């Protein structure tokens, strides 16, 4: 990661950035459009969603969203990074392959590849893959999607940005010692108490070990954290088992929920999607991403 701040005054030119969208949902782009302070500070030179430009020009920063699902994704990715001084992987899909990774499961993978029998369309790769399987990445910006605030931090001063360690610090719900649920409530139920910690209410919330920075919009709205920001810095360089155990420890201390019930919930797709984005969920034996590179 380039340590120096991009300084708009010193260089007397406005820094240029581009957005390369691979296979994803464009939610990251929608969030970036919400962070409209960049319009005053940066020149956007390539982002097919909002401008008609067909090649990535030379840029100071290249943001990549979406995972590598097709051969065309891989081709665009390799070409685009050649012209970029700094490359940022944005969102769960770029970092791990994201929701498309559910298609990597053996029981559906074959069904899936059958669907590509079409004339002259980009070929699906055997598996959905993260961008750093193909190109080196200078900075990871996790979140599904990252908030506008995080986008601005990644663009302007990633080294100086200090996120809260965990989502709980931003959530503000009260943790109670004497309210221990016996069972999980399920993923979505009405009648959420607005003040009390979601774990005390029996939800499979994993905000206790998920890195902060999002300002906890989901938990504050009464939905358990699914961990889209990835593990906190304490856990990020460890394997997924360490994260799993840390969450289990929290539930042992705060609830009477049986182990097997909790484990089933933690390994279910909704959570597994995000829970393991930094380690082994996407398959393979890639090393963990160093915490210095994760915003």
């Amino acid at each position, binding site marked *: 990661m380039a340590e120096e701040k991009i300084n708009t005054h010193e260089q007397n030119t406005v820094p240029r950035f581009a957005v390369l969208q691979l296979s994803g*949902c464009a*939610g990251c782009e929608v969030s970036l459009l919400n962070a409209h302070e960049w*319009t005053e500070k940066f020149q*956007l030179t390539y982002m097919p969603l909002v401008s008609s430009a067909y090649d990535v020009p030379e840029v100071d920063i290249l943001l990549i969203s979406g995972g590598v699902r*097709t051969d065309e994704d891989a081709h665009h990715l390799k070409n685009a990074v050649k012209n970029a001084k700094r490359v940022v992987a944005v969102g769960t899909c770029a970092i791990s392959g994201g929701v498309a990774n559910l298609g990597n499961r053996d*029981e*559906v993978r074959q069904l899936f590849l059958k669907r590509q029998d079409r004339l002259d369309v*980009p070929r699906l790769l055997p598996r959905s893959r993260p961008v750093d399987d193909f190109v080196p990445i200078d900075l990871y910006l996790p979140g599904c999607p990252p908030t506008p605030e995080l986008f601005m931090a990644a663009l302007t001063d990633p080294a100086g940005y200090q996120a809260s360690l965990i989502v709980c610090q931003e959530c503000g719900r009260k943790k109670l010692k004497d309210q221990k649920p016996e069972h999980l409530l399920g993923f979505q139920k009405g009648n959420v108490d607005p003040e009390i910690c979601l774990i005390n209410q029996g939800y499979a919330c994993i905000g206790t070990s998920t890195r902060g920075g999002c300002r906890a*919009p989901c938990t504050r709205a009464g939905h358990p954290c699914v961990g889209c920001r990835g593990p906190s810095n304490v856990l990020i360089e460890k394997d997924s088992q360490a994260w799993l155990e840390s969450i289990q420890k929290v539930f042992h201390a705060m609830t009477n929920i049986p182990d097997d019930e909790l484990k089933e919930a933690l390994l279910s*797709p909704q959570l597994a999607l995000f829970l393991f984005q930094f380690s082994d969920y996407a398959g393979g034996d890639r090393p963990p991403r160093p915490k210095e590179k994760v915003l």
Partner: protein
Amino acid sequence: MTTLTFPLSRIEGHARVEIEVQNGKVISTRFKATEMRGFEIFVQGIPAEQMPVIVPRICGVCSTAHHVVAVKTLEDAYGVTPPPLASRIRSLLLLGQLLQNQATSLFIFTMPDRVGADSLFEMDDVDVIKKKHFEMAQRALKIRELGTDLITLAGGQFIHPVRAVVGGVNAGIPAERAELMLNRLQQALPMACELFDAYWELTIRMKDRIGSWGDDQPAYYITSTGKVRPDFNSHEIRVMNPEGECCEIFSPRSFREVLEFKESEYSYAGKTSYKGGVIRANSLARANLTAHMGTKVANGYLHRLRIEFGIPAHPIMLFELGRGIELVYAIERAAQMLEQPLDGEDTDVPYTPRDGEGYGLVEAPRGPLIHHYVIEKGKIARAEFIIPTVHNMGSIERALKVAAERYITGDTVNMELEKAVGRVVRAFDPCIACATH
């Protein structure tokens, strides 16, 4: 035979247009969606109750529609009816999405065509025209941000909402937060109208300059919004025939008997048709099939559209004016809804999950969106997502053909064709992430 390939930009997702030409004659025009993640396949085996949080990831632009329709599909399967307060909050959520989407399509995707720019985001203090575009883009971003803020208010998370739950919603909207949003909407209305007036005028100017966008012929129209006034949290689908008569009303449960769906040989998106005819969904279908907008300013615009272009109206540029009318409607209607209390206790009803089959429907910005799940042992055994953009595939290709035939004559291709292709496609505002899912 020659194949002309046109990459596409300022649309949601990855696609290109291919036009086959032989001896000066246009053989085919193909809209080719070039991405697929495989949601219908990979949701197989996942717990049904997780669908409302997983399916918004089909598309970050249309996520709210997928979130709400997933909840409705599960409610259909479980036999649950949400209380009125929950339905109102879901409607508000869908209005936030409408506002965000129409502002993006109007001012970021299609405005550049009207002012002859590649994008409105070129910062330039010297060039007066670019500066004006840039200021317009900044105002447009503020309007669309209001849409995402409304989604946050009603849905919790701003892109992939979380607050609609089976049985209702997980909380009401506190009065003080509702009032803040109400004030912002009221302040935004004049700015949105001003932007839309400029857009309308530039649209007419472009029409005077180039004539048609590409296809002014009648088609079938399909929508699920209300007959008397729009309702995006919808329950039944209506079809209008090319003569302008409502010829069919059906529930999402019977979509297979009414619509013909075909996978495509050359695109990751399929295509639907009605009785062999081309269908149009999205804003023009709603403008043709709605009696009244139900809000004052938006209805004034609808009235003007009808005086100038008749009803049913067919030129595809009217999709774009229709989107502007809905932008204004979304602001006005959301304000009306926020004037009523939304913080009651009666947010949800209890339910018991069960196996079976469910169908759900909402009107997404691009048209009727249907989900269909088969649930076995609490898990998804089969899922279908019937995507509005897929209804429009036939009409996009028909309009591309009209444009191609206009600009390809003998052995010459008029370079205006490239712009025409972009204009045609953007008029339909296709969403490729959804269409291929």
